[in-house]
């Protein structure tokens, strides 16, 4: 029974994911590695639960990459994309050209024919969008400059796939006189057979249509569907749209991932953006997981066992070449202070596009069975190793770099003995710091954003570039003698980690913290830190206060009403905290976190009447009594 087989497979894949990913996460390995390990375990080499269909599954699961790019598109406004153009074309273009060139050269040394060497170079120059983007979002690096740069390069590579696909059949005919088979041409779609200018025209036309529809028609369609009140219809519409775009792009020879990415950007300022994001997100997650599992399951260990050293040598060589090129380019494009290493490690693996390109080249008789098998294995292994590279970067490279950098700054920080350490001098920390400085306190200010540090130094602030999460940095900032540590950085998870270390090692230091939301406040409360402030609560309350004034309250009434609300919020927070302690560890998905917060806050609010605390003036009881006396 076909159905049964399908469900059995689903059972195996899902089971493997559910078991291995949490374990990998616990061990600090990240979900990608977890999925890959799961794939290896259920694959033919270990348990043999899945066999040849893993390849098909992978093709299916590649759709996860498409969904992921759609979501990333949704989060990127066109303006921001325009800002990134220099990185996309400069950094991305140079990366592909240089890497392809060097790998071609190396392949020539291994006695490959020129056309094959070029094909290998082009195929291996690409990096894995799936792995890198998953890692970026998991580690919250999308806003980090290394992450941004990596993303730019990936975008360029996505675009580069189109000409590479067109180029491969051409270079296949250059070396070997064998003519192109009709079928292989067919497989890249009919548009690819048209002349170049027409092809370009079609692509531009398609994108224009997409932009017009996205700008003017999409919101009406979404509203129409949203008004039905049936969530599943909205889900269906969202999927329909993404799949439609993917197929359409494929038909005109554009990468589906790139097409949906553009669609995402077009919809980035639509009011249905968040709804779309939360709808697509679970599908993306599952499919990507499936994709990684199938990569793991597809590793051909037999080939590895036959030539272990040769294969491992190739993998390491590939990673080394990509790494060095990326590192140098990162430097040229002004990535500094360890970010260039992060950038290079992020992109040092081969791409999932390589699977497609390799099999395509095989069809075009560019590679024989042996070569394509080896290439596939090298690609797969490089992808499997890449999460390890990042761990290596985190644990070994950055601490060394940090130590080296700290030495340069050591003297500067040491001569000061300040009562306050302020970590994070961005939008939030700036205000905190200015209040302290204005009142004559000496503050040691740290920030981990080099451009921020540079800018603020120009305005006369004395601050240090540094990463407070490193224990040595804490020491050098003078934590031993400090009275206060203010954690005002935007990286909330890191702030929690620092708080935990300081609580343990320097209990005399009082910690004040910026919290993302109420759950973050609870995490601090759990460490006995009761000075965490939600980063947006007070400013929001201020605005509410202004609204009351605009609605006719006197300023004093509005002030009291807002102040009462804050007081009331304190009580609600206490209640929520007790509640949170009871079911701590409850899994709240990031996208649902806000919803959950609103729900629980409103529930807890029922226990306190906002009017209880403010009935001192104009009480009815007094009027009643006065009437009685008369």
């Amino acid at each position, binding site marked *: 029974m076909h159905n049964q087989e399908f469900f059995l497979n689903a059972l195996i894949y899902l089971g493997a994911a559910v078991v291995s990913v949490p374990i990998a996460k616990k061990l600090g390995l990240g979900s990608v590695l977890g999925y890959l390990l799961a794939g290896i375990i259920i694959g033919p080499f270990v348990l043999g639960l899945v066999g040849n269909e893993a390849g098909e599954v992978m093709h299916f699961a590649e759709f996860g990459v498409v969904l992921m790019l759609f979501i990333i598109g949704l989060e990127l406004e066109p303006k921001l994309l325009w800002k990134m153009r220099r990185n996309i074309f400069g950094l991305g273009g140079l990366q592909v050209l240089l890497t392809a060139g060097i790998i071609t050269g190396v392949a020539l040394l291994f006695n490959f024919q020129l056309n094959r060497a070029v094909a290998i170079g082009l195929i291996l120059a690409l990096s894995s969008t799936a792995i890198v983007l998953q890692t970026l979002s998991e580690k919250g690096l999308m806003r980090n400059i290394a992450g941004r740069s990596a993303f730019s390069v990936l975008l360029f590579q996505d675009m580069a796939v189109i000409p590479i696909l067109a180029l491969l059949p051409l270079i296949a005919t250059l070396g070997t006189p064998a003519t192109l088979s009709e079928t292989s041409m067919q497989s890249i779609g009919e548009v690819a057979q048209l002349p170049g200018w027409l092809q370009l025209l079609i692509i531009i036309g398609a994108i224009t249509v997409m932009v017009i529809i996205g700008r003017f028609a999409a919101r009406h369609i979404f509203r129409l569907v949203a008004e039905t009140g049936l969530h599943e219809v909205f889900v269906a519409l969202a999927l329909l749209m993404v799949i439609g775009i993917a197929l359409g792009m494929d038909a005109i020879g554009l990468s589906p991932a790139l097409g949906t990415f553009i669609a995402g950007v077009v919809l980035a300022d639509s009011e249905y953006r968040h709804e779309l994001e939360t709808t697509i997100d679970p599908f993306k997650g599952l499919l990507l997981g499936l994709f990684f599992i199938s990569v793991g399951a597809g590793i051909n260990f037999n080939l590895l066992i036959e030539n272990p050293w040769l294969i491992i040598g190739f993998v390491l060589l590939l990673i080394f070449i990509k790494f060095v090129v990326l590192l140098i380019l990162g430097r040229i494009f002004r990535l500094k202070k360890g970010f260039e290493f992060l950038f290079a490690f992020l992109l040092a693996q081969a791409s999932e596009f390589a699977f497609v390109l390799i099999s395509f080249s095989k069809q075009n008789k560019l590679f024989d069975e042996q070569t394509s098998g080896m290439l596939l294995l090298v690609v797969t292994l490089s992808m499997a190793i890449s999460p390890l590279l990042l761990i290596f970067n985190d644990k070994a490279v950055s601490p060394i770099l940090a130590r080296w950098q700290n030495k340069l700054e050591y003297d500067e920080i040491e001569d000061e003995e300040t009562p306050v350490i302020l970590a994070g001098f961005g939008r939030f920390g700036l205000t905190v710091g200015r209040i302290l400085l204005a009142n004559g306190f000496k503050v040691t200010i740290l920030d981990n954003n080099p451009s921020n540090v540079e800018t603020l130094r120009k305005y006369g602030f004395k601050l240090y570039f540094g990463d407070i999460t490193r224990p040595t940095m804490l020491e050098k900032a003078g934590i031993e003698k400090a009275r206060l540590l203010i954690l005002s950085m935007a990286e909330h998870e890191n702030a929690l980690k620092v708080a935990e270390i300081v609580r343990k090692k320097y209990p005399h230091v009082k910690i004040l913290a910026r919290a993302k939301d109420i759950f973050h406040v609870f995490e601090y409360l759990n460490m006995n830190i009761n000075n965490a402030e939600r980063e947006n609560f007070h400013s929001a309350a201020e605005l509410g206060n202004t609204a009351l004034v605009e609605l006719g309250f006197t300023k004093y009434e509005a002030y009291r009403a807002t102040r009462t609300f804050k007081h009331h919020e304190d009580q609600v927070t206490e209640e929520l905290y007790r509640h949170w302690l009871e079911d701590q560890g409850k899994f709240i998905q990031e996208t649902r976190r806000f919803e959950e917060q609103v729900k629980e806050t409103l529930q807890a609010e029922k226990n306190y009447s906002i009017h*209880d605390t403010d*009935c*001192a003036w104009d*009480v009815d*009881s*007094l009027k009643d*009594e006065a009437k009685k006396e008369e």
Partner: protein
Amino acid sequence: MEAIKDLEGVTINNLYEKYPDFFIDVPAEQKLLTEHDIIIWHHPFYWYSAPAIIKEWMDLVLEHNFAYGTNGRALQGKWAMSCISTGGRKEVYSAEGKNRYTINQFLTPYIQSANLCRMKYLPPYVVHGSHLLNSEQIKKHADDYRTVIELLRDNKIDAQRLNTIEYMNEIIEHDA
């Protein structure tokens, strides 16, 4: 304040510390009142009265049907007292002096407020000439104040004598 902060059975309720924005938590303050038998308004004598935060406290906390009114009996039978410090010497606070009225005359609103709340109002503890005190004199005052509060706490003050004195300070001075 330092002199009495460690006294058992005494709660120092520093309003400026608790309510820097004058936003007074009424239920909490009322609870505190019901838990104590003697309430002391301890403040400098600004413009012949208490600083605004004490007035705000009275405005909000001494609610109808809590502190006064037909059903307002929460403070019934408790003692109230003012402890004030003022720059002027005692002679200035008299019909012939610059300030024309005595301290107890100026304290009329507090006396009557206590009365309305069915409380018994004690003579005030007053520190005169506060600008000119040296540290030794300040210490003497602090010690005396501590003694007064201990006597009050332990209920060792003769009710008869309360009627004969103008300031609470006299209880100590007579003893000494």
